[in-house]
């Protein structure tokens, strides 16, 4: 834990960003506690920082949704939104800007990203300012659908592995095309040679995703188990494991974590397995008109002492599990990027009892992460761990 670079937002500017027509904010090094009624734009402030960190709006939102609908009108411009963040990053200052403008036609929006004064592609911005976000969605990590856990991994890995980010975007496109082909399978439908390209790409890209996830979950599991033990001592070992539709025996997966030098080597091995499983599932996928094996169907299992937490755990244990996973996310990002991520807590404190709330805030403070936290109730933000943070009240 030595020599970690500090990352903190120092200054934030929102212009025509959702409901904020113009907002300028200085953030103290320790962070900021933000309170105000629903709809006052608390979440939006965190979303703006997340946008600069991951280049994406929060889950379920589109770039277009970020634009204040009346913006630009008085200037005769297409509606737009702008976010500028000035960050401390490992001793240097980094200025990151996102500018989104609605297209002339339909629901399109164009996003321009800048670091300093230079335009950058999304892949070069992601990972620059690492963040860990704890939002109401995350409370579903244990009980929710596999897609929530996959997305959690995708967000984490996109910040720590550029190759992952590239493969992820391309995999989705290849998958959609391959499923398109599968839907057209009938007597006169596509012949085997039409699958060659899509199969090869699916396997090459998907293998990288699976290999990266397996290795990340192994690291995450270790950290999360330690975190869980600190939060709830002596009630059993907390276990996370990657569950893949590629369906190989456990020792094979363990070897994948321990042996290969890097993710590319691991991906080569996964590729062999993926190819075989793809062949085996041919009948099933043609019947269902979709690709049934691959990282888009995988999951993470969450267990306590060998028993599935979603089915056998108490609500309290499930909450502790979510906190442990979120704190473990700090550990994984710190160890892979050598940077302390900014921690964003959006509106979840009211879902935790006082004991767990305090444990979460103390753990984040102990990591010396900058912490921005929102709540509708100001009193939930009165915690010793937040003493040095600034306060912002929105009306």
């Amino acid at each position, binding site marked *: 834990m030595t020599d970690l670079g500090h990352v903190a937002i120092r200054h934030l500017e929102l212009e025509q960003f959702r409901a904020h027509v113009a907002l300028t904010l200085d953030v103290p090094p320790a962070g900021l506690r933000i309170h105000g009624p629903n709809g006052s734009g608390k979440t939006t402030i965190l979303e703006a920082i997340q946008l600069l960190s991951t280049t994406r709006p929060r889950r379920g939102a589109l770039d277009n949704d970020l634009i204040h609908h009346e913006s630009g009108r008085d200037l005769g411009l297409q509606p737009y939104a702008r976010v500028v963040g000035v960050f401390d990053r490992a001793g240097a200052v980094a200025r990151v800007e996102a500018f989104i403008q609605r297209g002339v036609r339909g629901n399109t929006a164009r996003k321009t990203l800048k670091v300093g004064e230079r335009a950058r592609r999304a892949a070069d911005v992601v990972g620059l300012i690492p963040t860990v976000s704890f939002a109401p969605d995350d409370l579903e990590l244990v009980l929710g659908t596999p897609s929530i856990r996959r997305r959690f991994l995708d967000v984490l890995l996109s910040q720590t592995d550029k190759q992952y980010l590239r493969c992820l975007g391309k995999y989705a496109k290849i998958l959609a*095309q391959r499923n*398109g082909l599968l839907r057209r399978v009938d007597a006169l439908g596509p012949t085997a040679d039409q699958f060659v390209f899509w199969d090869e790409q699916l396997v*090459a890209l998907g293998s990288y995703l699976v290999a990266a996830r397996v290795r990340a979950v192994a690291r995450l599991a270790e950290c999360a188990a330690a975190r869980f033990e600190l939060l709830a001592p002596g009630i059993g070992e907390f276990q996370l494991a990657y569950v893949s539709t590629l369906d190989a025996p456990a020792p094979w997966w363990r070897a994948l974590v321990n042996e290969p030098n890097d993710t590319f080597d691991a991906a080569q091995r996964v590729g062999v397995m993926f190819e075989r499983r793809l062949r085996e599932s041919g009948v099933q996928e043609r019947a269902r008109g979709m690709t049934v094996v691959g990282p888009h169907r995988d999951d993470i299992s969450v267990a306590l002492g060998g028993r599935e937490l979603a089915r056998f755990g108490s609500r309290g244990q499930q909450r502790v599990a979510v906190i442990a996973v979120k704190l473990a996310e700090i550990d994984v990002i710190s160890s892979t990027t050598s940077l302390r991520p900014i921690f964003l807590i959006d509106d979840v404190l009211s879902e935790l009892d006082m004991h767990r709330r305090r444990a979460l805030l103390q753990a984040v403070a102990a990591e010396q992460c900058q912490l921005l936290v929102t709540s509708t109730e100001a009193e939930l933000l009165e915690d010793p761990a937040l003493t040095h943070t600034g306060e912002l009240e929105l009306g």
Partner: protein
Amino acid sequence: MRPSKLTAEPVSRLVDELGRLPGIGPKSASRLTYYLLRASREQALALAEAILELKERVFLCSTCFNITETDPCALCLDPTRDRSIICVVEEPLDALALERTGEYRGLYHVLHGAISPVDGIGPDKLRIRELLERVERERPQEVILATNPNIEGDATAMYIARQLIPRGITTSRPASGLPVGGDLEYADEITLGRALVGRRAL
């Protein structure tokens, strides 16, 4: 758009027709229609004639499937072109862009699209069968697969290469694509690292 009783039949007919054009939604279609309604008779006629002329005088070259007013097209007939190379492109505009560079002296073959199963475009919807017949007939030394540098373009190039290689035809694919509005995002994705090495070779 349902024709309503408030709208004259010719108006809703034109709105429907314009609405079928790529990139034009119902809103734009209405706007264009009402614009034309107010426009001078001369302007409306000029547009109608331009469309008619396009359909009557321009057709596809039966050899290279580029757009032409004569068949075969001027380029296919040009004795100074290098007949040992055929460059395969997606659209007539791609051939035009390549011509503008002045670097290429061979022949073209226009596919009129790229393989995209999601959109229901398979090899049979493109001029691929015609390309294979042409290659058998003309036996060029090399076929350059200059489809767009995106997933669909890659899929198309790969599919064609797999047909040509057993026929003993050398195929190649420009590494960075054409100087034709190829999407920037892709330019860096092409280097997918070691995981894809070997798979990309045609």
